[in-house]
């Protein structure tokens, strides 16, 4: 194929991402499971890239989990989304940046619905006005937080202290990238690379020195799936999805997994413990697991931030072996201490999965 032709086709898989002035909306679950990620994103944007990013103290859940769990009706979901838009409008911003992939899918779905059914938009405007007396503008630009990091990946690489390179062998680290399903599988033209060739995480990995692994179950869901894990008896389905992915990626001996969704790193990290307890099987070297990172954590690591400020002590699979491979400096003694030096308590050791405490 001619290079020009290839570029022309690839253009269809690009999306417009705003340069500056972002209104940030956080995820419901990320602050519990990966508490340093969103703070790190804000720190990188404000301190490293000098961008204007604003978050409102009163923004709420997008209701995505309840909506996909068939608990929250669509009209309620759209009205809550309209309220987030109203806060963005009142704050004087036009570019919405959700931290969560589910929220990104929800906002995309709502905007697309209103585009095709203007009468629905008017109905929701009425609901919001009656409930809160607020009005809103639809965001001019909607980009997921990973799109923003992707956009500035070269700037981050230029400031990086470390690279995704094994310091002993000098070879690139082998990275599994896992994209959240609601990023581009529902609305392919809203994601970089579409649903078939999602490039958002691959671009970061390549720019930061790593090598992406292409394995058979690369595009399989992590197993989050809302109703699969909300009901305890169904969680076997969720874990089986992660299990299928681990079995598929294991022969390629990945050094780490990189994700851009709140649920994926949680399940790909925590299920490694559950599978080890149930099946006695681990997927990393020496009885350890494969460390799982969010893109903000990885960007923070590359920039030389303190791993414990990034919240890496909250991971089920230990990150120390990977940090040793790259040559990242860390202090094991302060791993379970807060900023004031108070002990956070040390977690219990799993019986099968080897961890560094």
């Amino acid at each position, binding site marked *: 194929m001619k290079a020009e032709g290839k570029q022309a086709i690839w253009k269809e898989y690009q999306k417009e991402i705003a340069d500056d002035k972002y209104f940030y909306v956080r995820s419901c679950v990320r602050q519990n499971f990966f508490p340093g990620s969103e703070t790190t994103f804000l720190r990188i944007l404000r301190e490293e890239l000098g961008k204007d990013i604003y978050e409102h103290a009163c923004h709420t859940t997008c209701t995505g989990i309840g909506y996909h769990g068939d608990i929250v009706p669509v009209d309620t979901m759209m009205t809550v989304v309209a309220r987030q838009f109203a806060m963005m409008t009142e704050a004087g911003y036009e570019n919405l940046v959700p931290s969560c992939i589910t929220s990104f899918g929800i906002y995309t779905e709502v905007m697309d619905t209103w585009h095709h059914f203007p009468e629905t938009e008017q109905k929701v405007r009425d609901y919001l006005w009656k409930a809160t007396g607020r009005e809103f503008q639809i965001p001019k630009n909607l980009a997921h937080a990973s799109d923003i990091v992707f956009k500035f990946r070269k700037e981050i690489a230029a400031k990086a202290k470390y690279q995704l390179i094994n310091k002993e062998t000098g070879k690139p680290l082998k990275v599994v990238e896992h994209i959240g399903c609601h990023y581009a599988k529902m609305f392919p033209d809203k994601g970089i690379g579409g649903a078939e060739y999602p490039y958002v995480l691959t671009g970061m990995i390549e720019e930061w020195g790593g090598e992406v692994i292409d394995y058979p179950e690369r595009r399989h869901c992590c197993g989050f799936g809302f109703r699969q894990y909300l009901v305890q*008896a169904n*969680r*076997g*389905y969720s874990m*089986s999805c992660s299990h*299928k992915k681990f079995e598929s990626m294991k022969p390629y001996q990945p050094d780490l997994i990189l994700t851009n969704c709140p649920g994926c790193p949680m399940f790909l990290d925590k299920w490694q413990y559950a599978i080890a307890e*149930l099946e006695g099987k681990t997927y990393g070297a020496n009885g350890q697991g494969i460390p799982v990172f969010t893109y903000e954590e990885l960007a923070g690591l590359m920039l030389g931030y303190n791993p414990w400020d990034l919240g890496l002590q909250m991971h089920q699979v230990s990150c120390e072996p990977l940090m040793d491979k790259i040559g990242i400096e860390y202090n094991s003694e302060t791993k379970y201490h807060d900023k004031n030096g108070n002990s956070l308590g040390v977690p219990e050791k799993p019986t099968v999965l080897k961890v560094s405490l």
Partner: protein
Amino acid sequence: MKNFGFSLSKDRQIDFDKSDKRIMDFVKIEEPTFNICIACGTCTATCSAGNFTEMNLRKMITLIKRGEITGVRAELSKCMLCGKCSLACPRGVNTRNVIFKINQALEKYSL
């Protein structure tokens, strides 16, 4: 082992690289008409044993082709070798001989 109240669900994916194809390969060579079966199920519809038992030749052939051969011996023991299926087959598959050959393969490979 810990009890979480849930466990791994069994995978229903057929991995053709790992499946046991010994019976299929044997029958394909010994009774080549086995290759032209279109799995229409006429054999099963006309099967006398199938009227009174769970005997299902169509299902058995499918499972053998997938390499899922556990239970083939028990299934086959229900066949009375009447040969009606051979007469009914629209593709001319010698189903009676197919059953003979599956039996031979079971003996040959001690399955």
